[in-house]
């Protein structure tokens, strides 16, 4: 029988992979992709908790739908920023973009 722990395991795995990617990838686009993974991990958790704890409440769906919308907007905005970064610096390698250092 597949229960809440299994969903949560998948969710954390997704989150871990996303976090790892967001922290280690040099390419800005890859980092954006990893952030998407983390958002989806959160969505998965929302739905899993909804399903197993209180199937009558609607908050989880609201959160997930807003999350999806925000993720879409974020992806569009993020790609636009990356495009501008590339125009400015001639690269999307995050290691080379460190203008705001102390």
């Amino acid at each position, binding site marked *: 029988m597949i229960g*809440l*722990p299994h969903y*949560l395991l998948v969710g954390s795995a997704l989150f871990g992979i996303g*976090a790892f990617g*967001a*922290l*280690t990838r040099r390419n800005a686009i890859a*980092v954006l992709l990893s952030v998407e993974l983390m958002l989806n991990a959160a969505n998965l958790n929302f739905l899993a*908790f909804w399903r*197993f*704890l209180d199937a009558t409440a609607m908050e989880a769906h609201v959160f997930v739908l807003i999350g999806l919308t925000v993720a879409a907007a974020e992806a569009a905005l993020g790609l636009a920023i990356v495009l501008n970064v590339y125009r400015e610096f001639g690269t999307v390698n*995050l*290691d080379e*973009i*460190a*203008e*705001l*250092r*102390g």
Partner: protein
Amino acid sequence: MGSLSGPLGLWLLLAAPAAGAAVGLCLAIVRRSERLAPAVTLSATALAGLAALANRPSRSAGVLGDVDLTWLTIGDGFRISVGVHLDHLAWVMVGVVLSVSFLVQLYSVAYMKGETGYARYFGYLALFTASMVGLVVADNLMQLYACWELVGICSYLLIGFWWHKPSAAAASKKAFVVTRFGDVGFLLGVLLLATAAGSFDLEIVQQAYREIGAGGPQAIGLVSNQAFVWLVPILLLCGAVGKSAQFPLHIWLPDAMEGPTPVSALIHAATMVAAGVYMVARLMWMFTLSSSGMELSAASAIALNTVLLLGAATAFIGATIAIVQYDIKKVLAYSTISQLGFMMMALGAGSASGQSTATYHLVTHAFFKALLFLAAGSVIHALHHSADPNDMRGMGGLWKRMPVTALTCGIGILALVGLPPFAGFWSKDAVIGLLLHRSGMGILGIGGDAHARMGADPWVASIGAVVALVVTLLTAFYATRLWLAVFAGSPRSKDAETATESPWPITTALVALAIPSVGVGWWLHHHHLLHTYLTGLRAGEDLEMHMGVALTATALGLVGVVAAWLLYRSPSPRQAGQAGSVWTDPVERMPRPLLTFLTNLWYVDRLWVWVGARAAMAVARVVAWFDRSVVDGAVRGSGRVVAAVGGVMGRSSSGQTQTYAALVIGGTVALIILLALYETATGSGQSAAAFGMAVTR
């Protein structure tokens, strides 16, 4: 005069000179009618004198003029008052101050004629008179201290009266600073006393002091009662040492001669310098605190020994330096120092006898030294066209040109030497006799009283007696030298040849002072008039006049006079046909090292400069080190710490977005772990329980 006796008269004593000072100084400020100033101040002084006469405390003690007003009330009725407490001692001193002040003002009318700042001068003199009277009649320590400082200010103002002369400005500053050294001790003593007694009132202070001396509860934290009873007199003595020009703070007095000569007579010979002596006499109960009957406590012996030894050192040092001075006023200044030493020695002898003997010498000295200074002023006035009118090397032969001055000065000299029947003879012999009595040496026909100690230790009194006899000899020598160098022989300068006698206000003052210089000694000695008046006690054995002392002192005085006569009677080189050659003073024939030592004033001035410079440099070095390393260190250190912290923190701001993200995630994880640990430790586990419940459902 009847209406003057009572509170009105007592207040007039203070108010009249103060009003005179106010009017005089106002005239000086508006620069109008300056010539009226002496009339105002003279009548104010005369009025105060009448008030004093009307309020003379009768010989049978008990009828004392005593009025006071509350000046300040601090906190819960801690009261500072201004008052007039006219007891016998104060009355005698007021009499001296007012009579000398009156004569000096009269003299100044002629002496200061045509000076700029004429009204200012008389205003200062009246202010001095008012402050000195305030000091003398003070019934509480605060008034005593305030007037003490006022008197110091007047001295400063008058020494620097010719402020445009750099030497006068320097001398006034020196006098102020040097006396300030002593005043620090005085102020500390006054504050200690007032703290212990809870009042400045002299009667309450005296009561409290006796209780402390008798072993009452500890009065002041940190200071035990045993230490208190000798520390306070010594601290107060510091003030007397400064004001009365005692060794080693005597160095200001000779420089104070930069002021006008009448000022030297009034302030730096007759009255102000006597303030220290007066203060010790006034507080004699403190210096002779008896712990059991007639025996002095050890503390009092410490205080009195110090007084006596300081007096002896001062008397000797002053007299030796006076021998080699050429400036007529400086001879008199060192003579004053020496005579003040005599008064201090008498005070050191302790008890009522010491008090009255010191006052006795104070009174006679006030008259004959004022006379000597005014006579010197008369000579200087006559020679004021010459380059250095004070230099005795440019005088000589003035006897024929200025007979009144020469005669009255001669009387002053004989009084200073102490030949009978002049005033100094009686009072000086009283001092020597008292010291010999205390020493218990049993010589010169004087029995000792070493069994009942009433003053300084016998061995200290012996030193004092010997010094007093030696100083008698030295005094006779330098005094005679002064007179002979100025008046005898033949003129040694153009100005001395053409000098003329001074105008009448000057000669009147001289004659008026010559009379007490002859008569006051015997009069006050007669039936121990002064002693019985001051103390209300019958004179004891220690005040008897002894033929042995009188003969010895007179013989020593005569030896000094004759020695000076032999050295100075010979015609000066100029008269002997060696025109143009400089007159050489016979004292220059003394052994070279001794002469150097004396003309360098025992190196006391230089010692002070050296000590001052050294001490100031040492303190400055410590302060500089503190400033450089601690203060600057703190400032620079805080800057450096900020810079270092900024460097470390700046390195973490790499601009690498991913590093920041890693820190955020790491921080969140760390927080979660901490929360979990906390809940495990406290056993509450709410969030973990909720999570576990959710998972297991």
